[in-house]
């Protein structure tokens, strides 16, 4: 069962070709019966088309010189030396400020620069009406990552983008039954008498 709010979250991935074939099938099934989602897809497709249609614009040679020449003399701004200083110092100052910001907040680490990885999770739950994936990546909130039933055998799937590191997660079936991922190689005690699955994303 897929809700319109799930479709909204997935539409851009759908257009970008990031969805699994089974997820595409479910999404397309929903859209066949949902006029508002079809309309949303239509407007996104049109927007994509317009953006592609813009194309690259060549800036005519000497454009900036012509603009400056057309301006009154007093509007020219700083002298060439000051302009040179501003052009040279502004990026340097910006770099120093950004670097200082990172250092002072203590938030700078290499993994901040590494792109998230796409991970597909699956679970078989034929009797389930809903399945969510929860973990440290979504504040353990079952409302945030609902899985999609991808075939009649009761296979549920979710595609996540995770940063490098060790992530703990589990599945919530029908909003109340927590189960670890049967396909996970590693599980850890959760400190509450249960176990969490572990996924390691390399940097």
């Amino acid at each position: 069962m897929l809700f319109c709010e799930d479709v909204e979250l997935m539409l851009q991935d759908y257009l970008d070709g990031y969805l699994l074939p089974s997820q595409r099938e479910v999404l397309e099934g929903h859209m066949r019966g949902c006029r508002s989602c079809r309309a949303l897809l239509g407007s996104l497709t049109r927007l994509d088309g317009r953006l592609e249609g813009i194309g690259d614009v060549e800036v005519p040679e000497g454009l900036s010189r012509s603009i400056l020449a057309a301006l009154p003399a007093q509007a020219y701004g700083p002298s060439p030396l000051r302009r040179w200083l501003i052009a040279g110092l502004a990026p340097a100052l910006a770099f120093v400020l950004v670097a200082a910001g990172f250092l002072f907040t203590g938030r700078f680490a290499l993994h901040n620069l590494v792109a998230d990885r796409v991970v597909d999770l699956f679970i078989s739950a034929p009797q389930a009406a809903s399945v969510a994936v929860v973990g440290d990546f979504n504040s353990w909130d079952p409302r945030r990552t609902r899985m999609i039933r991808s075939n009649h055998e009761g296979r549920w799937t979710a595609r996540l983008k995770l940063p490098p590191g060790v992530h703990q997660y589990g599945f919530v079936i029908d909003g109340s039954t927590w189960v670890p991922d049967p396909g996970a190689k590693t599980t850890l005690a959760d400190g509450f008498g249960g176990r969490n699955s572990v996924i390691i994303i390399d940097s």
Partner: protein
Amino acid sequence: MANGRAFAIMVIAIGAVFFTSSPVPAASRGGNRELEKIFKSSSFGEPEAAQIARAFKVAVDAGVEDRDALALVESGADGGFAADQVVRLLTVAAQLSLESLPTEMYVSKVQEGVSKRMEPGRIVQAAEFRALKLKQASNLFKQAVLDGISSRDREELLPDIAEALASGMDQGRIREIFLEAVKNGDSPGAIRRKLFP
């Protein structure tokens, strides 16, 4: 005339000092608004909310991110915690932050417990166990740096070491993993895989 000018300069100077040394940082003003929203939808009474707000400010002043401190209060409200339990959560987060330890893992354990509908006392206990393991991990990492591990990997590896300790891995084995990493030039990713075989 000269006195008037001196007076004006003094007023401007005091104003500048007042604005630049405001006790509530800009980020916390946003945090306070969020905090009020949480209180409005919670069962905390006014004195309890004031008690939590004081602990919130202490935590943020100690360096806990607004986002993390708010997550703790929100989890406390959602999980039916008593005010003193929320204060305790914030105090431990402040302690971690003062020791330059990451708070994300601690906050995540609280959120996990609330999501799993655990009893608040048990959640506090499980989260504090993680906080303790973070401190042990920090001590182990200091030793690892002396052995040759790059200190730049601290933020990335500390939660993993703490989780390995929490899951029962022996400190001696972790030390061995670091020594092997120094010898083989292992990346943080390779170290992580050995921590969770």
